[in-house]
């Protein structure tokens, strides 16, 4: 008898397990359907996801309230995840059949998301290509793939040279005339560097961190300034090594931690910390850092200048950009489009700059006198016309390749030319793999 009820118990257990499994599958399907049909009801709810960045989250809450008031029947819900878990969280929701309708992504991730079929192209009636191309800065083309625009940003960021005015004065340099050429930058960096008797850096003239903005400075700044290009027009070939300018830029970039001895990787853990604690006199960083500097180092006496150039001027630009996910259709798609139109309106762009420090993505909005003449934002905005946003097939990997190339020279004593050729070759492999199934 005992055996019999044991058997029954086992049966119940099995039943429960089977039920748990099958209802699980059913749920995700039903969930997806219910989600879609929601739109036909009275009220449409849009899920908007962006990463946690206090000033952005706060502003977005205000914007959503306004948007909802102007568009009765549409509700927007904002969800945030920390930056370093963002991809992970998005990815984890996909198999569950849940996720955002409008998503804010780093532009460098967009190809991966497009590749996976996660996004849909922006509706052309609301966002005609010629309008995007005439109004927005050309760098938004970084997320144009297969002849379609997949995302559209509210704001963009550029890199510029941050420098510590007090340390300039201390070294006998004029704090109102920052370096404008490669030679001047070298010269200033050397003058601003202090080392102790054992040769250890006490103060770095030029913060240097490939893992932070360093790799961007090399690709979109130095390479183009020297007259080179990283990618071919069709984005299929890595032409970085075709022109001697590529290697020249790579060597110049590496001269700071090597020949000039003005820099050290990991100096005071990273470039931002070193600059904030006045251990580094200059740093290449983005407009997005202004907010951090204001809150973490309100007394830091710094200024900003466009990146020093050579043959040409150039800087890196990057942006967080909004796309609509693949499953959204019907009334919900209309609502999502309206929301995107709202987010890319001139008014929102201006408020975005005030609240977050990110620059308007439309030329006419950005180039207004009040912004161009601003002491802090001015140099970033001034740089926008010659800013480039590298088309990444895999942001993480391309960054790692640059870091590795630098480390081979710095730590293993490899010849810079050999390290550079390896970098070009392995980057090309990434592009070959990306294009192979297109």
């Amino acid at each position, binding site marked *: *008898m005992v055996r*019999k*009820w044991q058997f*029954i*118990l086992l*049966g*119940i*257990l099995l039943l*429960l*397990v089977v039920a*748990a*499994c099958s209802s699980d599958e059913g749920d995700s399907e039903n969930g997806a359907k219910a989600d879609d049909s929601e739109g036909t009801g009275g009220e449409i709810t849009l899920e908007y996801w962006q990463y946690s960045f206090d000033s952005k989250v706060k502003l977005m809450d205000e914007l959503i309230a306004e948007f909802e008031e102007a568009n009765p029947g549409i509700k927007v819900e904002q969800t945030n995840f920390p930056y370093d878990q963002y*991809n*992970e969280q*998005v*990815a984890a929701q*996909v*198999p569950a*059949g849940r996720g955002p309708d409008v998503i804010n992504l780093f532009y460098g991730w967009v190809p*991966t*998301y497009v*590749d*996976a*079929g*996660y996004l849909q192209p922006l509706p052309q009636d609301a966002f005609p290509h010629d309008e995007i191309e005439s109004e927005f800065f050309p760098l938004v083309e970084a997320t144009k793939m297969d002849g379609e625009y997949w995302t559209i940003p509210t704001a963009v960021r550029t890199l510029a040279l941050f420098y510590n005015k007090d340390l300039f004065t201390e070294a006998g340099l004029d704090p109102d005339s920052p370096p404008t050429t490669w030679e001047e930058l070298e010269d200033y960096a050397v003058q601003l560097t202090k080392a*102790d008797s*054992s040769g*250890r*850096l*006490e103060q770095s003239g030029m913060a240097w961190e490939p*893992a932070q903005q360093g790799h961007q400075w090399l690709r979109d700044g130095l390479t183009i300034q020297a007259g080179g290009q990283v990618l071919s027009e069709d984005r299929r070939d890595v032409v970085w090594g075709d022109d001697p300018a590529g290697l020249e830029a790579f060597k110049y970039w590496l001269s700071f931690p090597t020949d000039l001895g003005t820099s*050290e*990787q*990991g*100096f*005071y*853990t990273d470039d931002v910390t070193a600059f904030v604690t006045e251990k580094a006199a200059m740093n290449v960083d983005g407009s997005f850092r202004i907010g951090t500097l204001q809150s973490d180092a309100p007394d830091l006496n710094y200024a900003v200048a466009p990146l020093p150039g050579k043959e040409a001027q150039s800087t890196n630009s990057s942006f967080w950009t909004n796309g609509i996910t*693949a*499953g959204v259709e019907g009334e919900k798609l209309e609502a999502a489009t309206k929301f995107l139109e709202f987010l890319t309106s001139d008014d929102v762009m201006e408020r975005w700059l005030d609240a977050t420090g990110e620059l308007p993505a439309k030329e006419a909005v950005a180039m207004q006198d009040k912004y161009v003449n601003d002491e802090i934002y001015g140099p970033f905005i001034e740089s926008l016309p010659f800013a480039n946003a590298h088309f990444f097939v*895999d942001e*993480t*990997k391309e960054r*790692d390749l640059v*870091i*590795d190339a630098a*480390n*081979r020279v710095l*730590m*293993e004593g490899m010849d810079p030319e050999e390290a550079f050729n390896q970098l070009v070759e392995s980057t090309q492999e990434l592009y070959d793999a990306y294009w192979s199934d297109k």
Partner: protein
Amino acid sequence: MEQYSSSHHHNQENKPPQKEKKSLTHKFRGNLKYQKYLFVYTCLLLPIIFYLGIRILPTLFTFNVGFRDWNLLSTDIQPFVGFENYLTLFKDEVFIKSIFNTLIYIVLGVSGQLIFGIIVALLLHKINRFVGFFRVIYFIPYVTSIVAISWVFQWILMGNGIINDVLVNLGLPPQPFLNSPDQAIYVIIGAMIWQSIGFQMILFLAGLENIPEMLYEAADIDGASPWQKFWHVTFPLLNPTIVFSAVIGTITFIQVSFTQVVNMSMDGSGGPLNSTISVVVYIYQLAFRQFDMGLASAATVILFLFILALTLFQMKVLTKKFDY
């Protein structure tokens, strides 16, 4: 409900065993003892279902994912590709490097933990004063946040950090530590050992308490030296603790190597030049940086087999019977 229906069913096909039917309903309805059992088993069952759903089934599912070309962001059907993911992994230099590094982490990390744990436990076992104080001192690192410790180590070890100051003052050249592909992994292992000494110390202290004093007295009478006493009395009798510590240490080392590596390596992902990357860190990168669940799952299966083999090996080699 099930009991009723089944007994009812039972009743129809089988007339004679009236007694049994009665006994079954009786057991559950009348007898408090059996009701209590039913309650206890139901309670025990819940964690099992949870465990099945949260741990076992996903684990089995990993094997399935490992055989597919599975892009995490894609909602399409994930095609079956056989052993392709495994082949890709074995051709992947970074993966091979991560396996090799994981071995270094385990071999040096676990043996370091055990050796220092035993030493500290033996020392603490000998003293009578301030025992609590020392135990707390040695145990504090274990309960401190790994992230905090990793960052403190970064600051201590950086180019113009305190350790290099000491080195320079002693007339030695400053060292790159975490910035060097040759040194970084050992620095990280050192930090991990330091952090786990407290835990190992507690285990070994418990093991030492269990060794009967009379064995040492007998050894004294036989004129054994301290080293002989350790090697022939303490060590064999600590064997079960050592096996347990080694197995647990290995498994936690494989898991924990993630947090330390991510927080201490200079680029936050196992650098410089992948010299500190562990399999777990690489699995994370494959899954959530490159969204390649197929490759990540295949790597996870390999890690699973690796841990399984290692654990069996440890149980076989380290477990010996000692009778006194």
